[in-house]
């Protein structure tokens, strides 16, 4: 699936920020989003690759896709509850 196929409610650009910046930005966005909405998180921090999927799993949301873009990662997250 291409990025353009997702209907993104909130996009968080956390590039240039080290851990825990990207994850905390995602958590803030999750708090704002409605249940069922998709979020997109952009991060170039390597630590985030471990932390964000682990947090999504713990918080029982869904990591729909992790896309490796040019020089950064794009996390597509769905708020489940």
């Amino acid at each position: 699936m291409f990025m353009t196929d997702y209907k993104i409610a909130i996009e968080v650009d956390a590039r240039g920020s080290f851990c825990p910046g990207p994850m905390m930005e995602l958590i803030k966005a999750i708090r704002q989003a409605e249940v069922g909405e998709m979020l997109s998180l952009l991060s170039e921090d390597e630590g985030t690759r471990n932390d964000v999927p682990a947090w999504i799993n713990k918080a029982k949301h869904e990591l729909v896709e992790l896309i490796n873009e040019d020089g950064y990662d794009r996390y597509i997250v769905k708020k489940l509850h």
Partner: protein
Amino acid sequence: MQRIVIIGGGFSGINVANKIAMKGKRKDISIILIEPREHNVYEPHYLFWSFNKDPLKKFTVPLRKVLKKGVQHIPAVATKIDKKNKSIDLSNGETISYDYLVLATGARMAEEQVDSYDKDNIHHFYLTKATEELQVALKNFNGGTIVISPSTVPYKCPPAPIEFAFLVDRYLRKRKIRDKSTIKFLYPLLRPYPEARVAEKVKELYDKRGIEFVEFFNYESIDKENNKVISLEGDEIEYDLLILIPPHEGHKVIIEAGLGDREGFVPTDRFTLKVKDHDKMYAIGDGTNLPVSKSGAVSHFSAPTVAKNILLEIEGKEPTAKYNGFTICFVVTSPRRSMLLFFSYKYPPKKFGLHNLFIYGFFKKAFKIAYFKALLKGYL
């Protein structure tokens, strides 16, 4: 004559005012510092003050004793910033104009958002009155579960709640009630500090001292009836004494002037420290949105950039001074020991004194002397 007005007389505001007074030509500039309080408090001491009752004056200083000649202090609150007319309304009814403005307003402790702080069992150590109440609560604590948690990020001095856990462990041992007590440290991340190697060391020390670490706990609410703190992730933790770091946000005067982001922090160029999209306006300290920790060390290392850029602009030159994000941080692990970290925009926290040395503990305490004698006065 160019008038430089600084809103906020915490460490950042005082430091910038003094640095400009020392470096600027007195005939060319006037410096006004707007700050309602007549004293400056050495805020890092609140952490230690939670456990003793030293008089407040041991870690406060009157502003008149630290402000350089050439800095005029107006003891009032800035109630409105008029960007168009370059003026500021004050709580004493005056309106003053400015040529250059420095926003050093700090972070506001939004205690009302928690709405549960009380004299019984929910406390924090980020304000004078709150810390005094915590002193009493700790004295009255005779065993049970102490839970420590941030409410949101960012908050001032990232290691402070981690340090509190170490110090409360020592305090309970001294009172011989540690065996009747449980200490739990809740944190939003997978580990007890953002940087993995530091987190590993903290975890090792926590395990050694029997401090329980709860990962991925993002504070959501409190169930006061059942003494439980609840996370966004759905965990519920029971407490007898809850230490909850208050939410931080920008001040009303910043938000109402349209100078804040979603949380009221001032969007600030991370290098020049100019307020984004505003000429002749700078921001420093805890009230900015800089991607560094909210701490006095950041203020200390960034103040020369603000002072230099304003003086360059006054001379008709480009404000070319840049702050590289460098700062340091002590992590207290006992009343006598600390770890020292340093970091900048270019690299995440690097361990420097991860050996938990006595000497760093000494530095952290001795720092109070350096703060009042040199840093506030703009000497270093």
